[in-house]
């Protein structure tokens, strides 16, 4: 029996310490023990499963945060077992755990692995202690390298690392060194993001005061270009704007977002997208862990901001999400899904972008031109 494909995202909103640039839903105050929080996740999984009328199968599951590696392996096991019981994980389901250095030992890694996680994504961010301190990270370079070793020894053969460039006082040469170091570690997956200063973070305050010496736009662009050049040179496939993978090791979970496949989010502030009618509906959970808990304890789902998408929304998303994947979108498939009529104006815009050299078309495949990867937002905005 095959069910509807729905991926699961589970959010753990606590960290040892909040990084200075971070505006994710995370906090250093841990008012819940990991076991208490895992219990809430279990309860939410149960509550949500009762609302689904059709059988489900789960191709990917992702524990994000925050720092979900602060959970005990037994908590993780309990949540994964519950999900499997209620939603049925596919036999080859990808189950990712985000982990931060300083929270991962060989024992814990082994524990997470036997709890069911088969992919680990480690937030290394930088390979210089000076930069790590500047970011407000809790760990050193040594601990980051140890975390990678621990994951490997613990049995993870699918390992990703996260890096950030365009950091304050970071030079192009330093970033290139970081990329070479990353390649030497030979992870299966590398995410390399440019730092964005988000409103409300300590970094935003520093920037306003002129105390955040970020690289100039041109240097930031060079870092972007160096990333693609060095990592593809090291055998990684540049498959998404900021993501690189060994062949066959792309993050299947993240691709769910870009392809507008369904996912359900669990935990405080988690986001969901359920596409049952071709257009889909988005919503999220209350971001505060306390509100999240209170809703669940009253037997209510902590959801809010439920937005059913219009045809225009769905079309726009198909482009600005789908084009994040460098393989691009299949306009033939889109025509089949949405109808050639509604698609036509979007294809006109695409044509304009092709003429400006920002998009490429190859049969039914529409994708970012190599030089436009770094200008993706300019392209995406055209589809809104």
């Amino acid at each position, binding site marked *: 029996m095959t069910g509807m494909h729905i991926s699961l995202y589970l959010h753990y909103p606590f960290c040892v310490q909040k990084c200075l640039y971070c505006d994710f839903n995370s906090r250093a105050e841990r008012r819940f023990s990991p076991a208490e929080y895992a219990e809430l996740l279990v309860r939410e999984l149960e509550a949500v499963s009762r609302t689904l009328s059709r059988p489900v199968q789960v191709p990917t599951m992702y524990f994000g945060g925050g720092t979900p590696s602060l959970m005990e392996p037994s908590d993780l096991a309990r949540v994964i077992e519950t999900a499997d019981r209620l939603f049925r994980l596919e036999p080859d389901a990808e189950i990712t755990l985000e982990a931060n250095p300083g929270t991962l030992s060989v024992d814990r890694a082994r524990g997470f692995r036997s709890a069911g996680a088969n992919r680990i994504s480690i937030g290394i961010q930088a390979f210089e202690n000076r930069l790590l301190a500047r970011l407000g990270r809790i760990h050193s370079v040594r601990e980051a390298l140890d975390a990678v070793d621990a994951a490997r020894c613990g049995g993870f053969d699918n390992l990703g690392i996260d890096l950030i460039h365009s950091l304050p006082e970071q030079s192009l040469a330093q970033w290139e060194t970081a990329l070479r170091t990353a390649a030497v570690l030979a992870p299966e997956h590398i995410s390399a993001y440019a730092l*964005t200063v988000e409103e409300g973070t300590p970094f935003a305050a520093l920037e306003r005061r002129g105390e955040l010496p970020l690289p100039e736009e041109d240097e930031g662009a060079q870092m972007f270009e160096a990333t693609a050049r060095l990592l593809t040179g090291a055998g990684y496939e540049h498959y998404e704007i900021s993501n690189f993978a060994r062949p066959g090791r792309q993050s299947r979970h993240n691709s769910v*977002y870009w392809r507008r496949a369904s996912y359900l*989010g669990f935990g405080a502030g988690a986001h969901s997208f359920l596409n049952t009618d071709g257009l889909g509906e988005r919503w999220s959970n209350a971001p505060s862990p306390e509100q999240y808990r209170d809703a669940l304890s009253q037997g209510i789902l902590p959801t809010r901001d439920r937005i059913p998408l219009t045809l225009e929304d769905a079309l726009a998303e198909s482009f600005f999400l789908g084009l994040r994947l460098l393989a691009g979108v299949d306009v033939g498939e889109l025509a089949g899904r949405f109808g050639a009529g509604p698609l036509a104006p979007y294809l006109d815009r695409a044509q304009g972008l092709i003429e400006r050299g920002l998009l490429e078309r190859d049969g039914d495949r529409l994708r970012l031109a190599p030089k436009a990867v*770094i200008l993706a937002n*300019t392209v995406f905005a055209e589809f*809104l």
Partner: protein
Amino acid sequence: MTIDHIRNFSIIAHIDHGKSTIADRLLEFTGTLSQRDKQDQFLDKMDLERERGITIKAQTVRLNYHADDGKDYVLNLIDTPGHVDFTYEVSRSLTACEGGLLVVDASQGVEAQTLANVYLALDANLEVFVVLNKIDLPAAEPERVKREIEEIIGLDTHDAVLASAKEGIGTKEILEEIVKKVPPPVGDAAKPLKALLFDSWYDQYQGVIILVRIIDGTLKKGEKIQLMSNKRSYEALKVGVFAPDMREVATLSAGEVGFVIAGIKDVADAKVGDTVTHLHRPCDGPLPGYKEVKPMVFSGLYPIDTSQYEALRDALAKLKLNDSSFSYEPETSLALGFGFRCGFLGLLHMEIIQERLEREFNLELITTAPTVVYKVHQTNGTMVQIESANQLPPTGEIAYVEEPFILASIHVPNEFVGGILALCEEKRGVQREIKYLTPTRVMVIYELPLNEVVLDFYDRLKSITKGYASLDYELLDYRQSELVRLNIMINGEVVDALSLIIHRDKAYYRGRELVSKMKELIPRQMFEIAIQAAIGTKVIARETVKALRKDVLAKCYGGDITRKRKLLEKQKEGKKRMKNVGNVELPQEAFLAILKVEG
């Protein structure tokens, strides 16, 4: 009611010194406004009206007062807030009065803004008496403030009323002072009708409503009247007073103040300062002081979204209904498309209209830098008046150009005099006089070219004096000047909306500053952008905006697509607010860069 029992007065006050509250107390005390309506804040309501009205509208209200002498009086409050742009209108309203209350905050003292209006009142021979308001405040210093009033304005303050409008202190004293100090009007009800039109506005149901002060004669409903400036005649369909709502009366006689509705279609036909008389028994001649007000400051208004052109045209027509001093005519710009060249009395007037268009009519506009009217004498002997740099004839056809000069009176605390002098000199001013009103207050009088004043003079004045200066000005004359046209080119194309007429000595500096400011304001785009300043064909400055290198927000977390979309939408919204010049997108601010350049 005999003429001896009428008192026509206005309240002169700096903003925030309590005029509205005093007016409320007077209305309440005389029973004009019931306690029930108390929260309405009558003048505040009028302030709101005024904010909506383009010219600052005069308002009147009739109060019936039984005075201590046992007699009944009619007190007409004519509210005339003033600003430098509306000096003429204010002066006409003051002419309708015999007396004025000068309201001064007992802790703040005389403020610069008050002065010009007090002088206007004194010029109009009004009997002015002083009310010190807010005397209940701990910071009140009535003695110091009285001394200041005597020194600066020269008014006798020994019997100034001490009041607190908030606490209701002094209300009766003010009413008694009005009866005692303000002279009754002088006029003869038997003479032919002679009435001063001191304001008019358009009402969508009743047409134009005019406010009049009857000088001589009597006006009855149904009579044929004539406006003396344009000889147009109408029937007085309704006459009445505001008490405080519109109330019809059978007649308005010499000394009285009221409204007339006469089927006037266009507010431009009911000009402030005009004389109203009977068609068949006209008076001997018009009242003195009438003049046509003409726009002094011009700027181009363009919709950012070209589809809003019709909406802008309709909005301008609506505003014009109520404001004959404002003018507009279609204008086309290569850079900005279809828009309007609009004329204003001054900078405040311009700001009010722009704000109303954006706020009330939901229009998004690009405003070009304000200019003045130049007189261009051509080699063929003719003279043309131009309101924009683009109307300037080719250099070869120009004999010489004249520009308007104003006489500016700047009132400041003495510590700022140095800064003011430097500013006026920089603005090509010619010093007339520096008057010490008191040891600490100075009046600096300069002859200034208006084109320098409309650019950034106010802002500079404010920042130099921390807001403590007031500026009053009048048009002086036209003077021959070395004026040139400064062009801004984007990727080699002249952006007509950015061209300006400027004194030759300033052109180089302004040109350089302007392109460097533009460089800051124009965001990077897909290609390199050259910004040049040129006099004629001679390029005098250049800057380059490098091509956009990076526009990617990589981070997306936990499937929060909604947020990602919002970010993209914000970016797109920003783009929509840009104007395409060739293939370059210019932000609105770029068109006002000239105002941000110092010097």
